Every structure is written in structure tokens, then in C-alpha cells.
């Protein structure tokens, strides 16, 4: 997904002189093509993410449309106060890109994991949050984020994420995208966990349940139209995300229904409230976190969804 990000940014920056990238000394050669087309607008800000966030805001105040880019915890938690004051409060159109989000860098340990980033960004007024599921979703949503001209958090994966759409989807910022229409149960997946959601969709089919599968890429603003309709269309909603089960996408869904006084069965799947360490891969980390198909299916069985 990071290669898709670099490629799309190169394409967009070659047509728009206001686009600028600040990156915190990662992505060796990743931005070589961007440097070719926008040498003065491709800025290695050094391993200084807090300064990078504020600088991007300053550049936005002077008319640039900056991106800041590094591994997720360092571009969300490390520099959170700079994002709060200089980007969110001052409402500057900076796109904060967290690469390798969730458990993408599982084997690098908790320093490189991010299960709290959506929670942090959700708590900031003015902030938009978008989590593409694969490289196609990333490339379709990116120009829409630039057009927002507002603070935005773009939570992306690492590399070689499975392609989740057979044809290019007509995604729109802020709108849930129905991949497979269904009934009685809806699977709402946020971001790179989508392949697990697709597995779950198949599993439900084997149990005779034709579930609706949805790419819920935008966490903020939440698609209230979809959710409002979903409350009456489905008996069960299942949310999936590679983020702490508390404070992220599933929580946002629950909070929406609570505010609307709607009673809906929402089953949230995410990372439990503990650190995940001593793992060799994203696959084993998901198993350790209970975010694998077997654990999800067993939980749903215990709750009589299946």
C-alpha cells in the first residue's frame, strides 16, 4: 500500500504544485519518483515527527497542501499535541499518513504497532479519518482527501496487502461501500482487516447466512445514513478493525446508535485491550489478538449469531 501511496502522490504532485510531502526519514527510495517531479516539495524532515507536523501546518498556512508520512505511531501518538493544536485546532489542510498501521509491522513489536491511533484522531475536532482496505481504495480516496481541504488522517497498510475488489470500486469519502449486498447480518470492515472480513463472509455463507459485506473506510465522519438504515435492515452488525476494540471504528458505531437511541446488536472485533508482543508475523499476531477467522466464528457462535 505504501508503494501505491508513493505512486499516487507522484501522479497528483506532478499536476498540482501545491502538494508537498514531509516524511520522517523512512521509505528508502520510496519517493525517488516524487523527487524527480517535485524536488523542492519532497522534504525529508528528519526523525523529528513533532517538528514535522507543525512545519506541515505552517506550510499549509502559506498555501501548500502538505502530507506528513511515517510509521503510524510516530505520526499520530509521538506528535499528537502538534496535530491537536497546529493541524486540528487551526484547521489546516494537512493529510497525516500513518503507514504500517495496526499490526502491519507485527514482528517489530509494540513500538511499531498502532492500536490507539484512530481513538486519538477521533477525539480531535475538525479531523477526518479514512482507512483504505487496499491499494485500489487508497488510490481512489486520496484525491478526495486533498479536495476536502481539511485536516485528515489517512491510515494505510504496509505492502502486499491482498487486493479486495475484483473491479475498481466507486468509493466516496464518507460513504460506506457495499461490496456484497445481504440480509440479516452485516459485516462492516474498516481498513486492512478486509481479507478477514471476506473470509468471514464466506464462512457465514456456509452457515446459510447471506451477509452484507461493507468497506467502511471512513471512520469520521461516520456514514450515519448507512448506519441508520442498517439498524432496521439487519439483526446483527459485526464490526472488524485492526485497532483496539475500544475507541476505534466499532466504538464509533456503538456511540452513534446510543446517541440515536437505537437498539442494535453490534459485535465488535478488534485488538483486545493489551499489548501484542513476541510475534513473528501479522498472521500470528492476529491469532494472538483473537482477530483470526476461527476466534471470530467461535465468538459469533457463542453469541448465537451463527
Amino acid at each position, binding site marked *: 500500500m505504501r508503494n501505491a501511496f508513493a505512486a499516487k502522490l507522484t501522479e497528483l504532485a506532478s499536476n498540482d504544485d501545491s502538494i*508537498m510531502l514531509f516524511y520522517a526519514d523512512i521509505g528508502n527510495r520510496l519517493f525517488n519518483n516524487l523527487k524527480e517531479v517535485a524536488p523542492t516539495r519532497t522534504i525529508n524532515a528528519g526523525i523529528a515527527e513533532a*517538528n514535522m507536523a*507543525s*512545519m506541515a501546518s*505552517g506550510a499549509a498556512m*502559506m498555501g501548500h497542501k502538505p502530507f506528513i508520512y511515517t510509521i503510524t505511531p510516530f505520526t499520530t501518538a509521538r506528535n499528537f499535541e502538534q496535530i491537536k493544536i497546529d493541524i486540528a485546532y487551526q484547521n489546516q489542510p494537512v493529510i497525516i499518513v500513518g503507514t504500517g498501521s495496526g499490526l502491519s509491522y507485527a514482528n517489530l513489536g509494540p513500538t511499531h504497532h498502532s492500536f490507539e491511533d484512530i481513538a486519538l484522531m477521533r477525539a480531535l475536532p475538525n479531523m477526518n479519518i479514512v482507512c483504505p482496505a487496499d491499494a485500489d481504495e487508497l488510490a481512489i480516496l486520496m484525491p478526495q482527501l486533498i479536495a476536502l481541504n481539511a485536516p485528515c488522517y489517512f491510515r494505510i497498510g504496509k505492502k502486499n496487502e491482498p487486493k479486495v475488489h475484483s473491479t475498481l470500486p466507486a468509493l466516496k469519502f464518507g460513504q460506506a461501500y457495499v461490496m456484497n449486498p445481504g440480509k440479516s447480518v452485516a459485516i462492516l470492515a474498516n481498513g486492512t482487516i478486509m481479507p478477514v472480513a471476506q473470509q468471514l463472509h464466506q464462512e457465514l455463507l456456509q452457515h446459510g447466512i447471506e451477509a452484507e459485506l461493507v468497506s467502511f473506510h471512513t471512520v469520521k465522519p461516520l456514514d450515519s445514513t448507512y448506519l441508520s438504515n442498517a439498524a432496521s435492515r439487519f439483526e446483527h452488525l459485526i464490526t472488524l478493525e485492526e485497532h483496539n476494540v475500544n475507541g476505534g471504528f466499532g466504538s464509533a458505531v456503538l456511540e452513534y446508535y446510543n446517541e440515536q437511541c437505537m437498539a442494535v446488536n453490534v459485535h465488535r472485533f478488534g485488538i483486545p485491550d493489551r499489548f501484542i508482543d513476541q510475534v513473528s508475523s501479522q498472521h500470528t499476531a492476529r491469532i494472538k489478538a483473537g482477530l483470526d477467522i476461527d476466534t471470530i466464528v467461535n465468538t459469533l457462535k457463542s453469541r448465537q449469531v451463527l
Partner: protein
Amino acid sequence: MVELEKISANIRYTLCDVSSKTSTPHLGSCLSCTDILSTLYWQVLNVEPQQPKSKDRDYFLLGKGHAASALYTTLAYRGYFPIEDLYQHGSDGSQFEEHPGIHAPAGVETVSGSLGHALSLASGMALSAKVQGLSNRFYVLMGDGEINEGTVWEAAMFAPAKQLNNLVAIVDFNKLQGTGESCEIMHLEPLDEKWRAFGWHTIRVNGHDHQALIEAFDAAQVQQQPVCIIADTIKGKGISFMENDNNWHYRIPTVDEVMMAKEELGLK
């Protein structure tokens, strides 16, 4: 310089009066940077109070946001808005918040209050201006307490790497921060050597000597690298019973103390 001294004296008196009438703290912090601000706004910055958003203006960013009152008062005397408006300080719905917010009056460029943001913001602005071929210049005033913040040193390493010679940092080095002596709390000295070693063209001056400040700002115009002016100052400067007394970081003067200050400032 007589004029700048007179302006500074008036600003100092209004700072005391506003502080007394509106219970605005941080008087000592405001008084230490008054001469720097008057020099900037009357002798250095390319600004037009009637057109505060003019595209070719120079930008002044206040890093030490708790000295907001010093900036507001300077802007009022410079003609951005009426001096009487200052007495709305801190009231409900006021533009004059204790730390400048997004509703701050004309002339205030950025939000301030959390320390260590302004040099980074200005570095991004200066970089953006260079990329666009713009001639604006960017000035940042920081406190010596503020430079405890690590982000200041992130920006201090970045700006010289990009030869941001449209950027001028000023450290209001009054030697006292919130609760103690700056050079005991952190190892600051030799502060000018520190900035020089980071790649800044560094000038150390008496921060209450208008002529010395003007010469430093003039010298800053012609450098190939960003410039740092270390301004040695006195917290509470100009009012004998406030000078170097750190109680005035938070204390509010009584009406009698305001009258004593006015007399000491040579105002009638």
C-alpha cells in the same frame, strides 16, 4: 530611539493597567519582551495594520504564548485595533484570550500557548515561502523556558539544513522561567554558542537596547542561514519592584502598584 523608548514605556504601563483591571497574569514575561516587540513592529517588520493579511507581509509568531498581552498591547499601539479593546482581556467571548486562539484579533498570526510550536510552524512557513519564491520573512519570539521543549531543537536542526535565511528566531533570555532560574533548571549556557553550533547565524544583544536590536535585525537580513538573536533581558523590566522577582510571573498588580509603575515609567 527616544520614540521607541516612549512607545515601550506606554506599552509597559498599559500592560500593568490591563493586568490589574482584568487579572491577567504573566506580567514579568510581558515586560521582558516589550522592547523586542516595539523594535520589531516599529522598525523591522513589513506590516500594514490596516491590511493585516496583505500577502507580502512579514510574519511574527509568538512562541511564548503566555506573553499574549505583550503582543496584543503592541498591536494596539501599532494601530491594529483600539487600545480600549485590550480591557476585554479574558472576558467571555473576547478575542483577547489568555493564550491566543483562532479568534485572536488581527495581527496575531497563529495560535500559541503550548510552548515549542512556533519555531516549527515558522520553519514550515519559511520553507513553503522559499519553494514558492515568496519574499516574506518570518520572526519567532521564544522564551528561555520555552526552549526547554525538544521540538525547538528539532526545528533548530532543520532550518539551517534547508538554509532558511528568511527565518529569524529571537530568544527572550530573561533567566527566569515559571518556577525558577532558567540556567539551573536546564543547562542553557552558553546559549549563543549552542545556536551557533546548530548552524544559526547567532547574535547576542542587550534585549532592552533598541539600537542594538535594530542593528541585529539589520544584520539578520543579509545572512545565508537562519538567524538567532539571543536577547539578554530582565524579567519585569522597567518597573523596579517587578524586575527579577519571579512572583510577577503570576502576580496581579494592585491599583497603587499600577500608579507606582506609571511614575517609574516617566508617564503622567
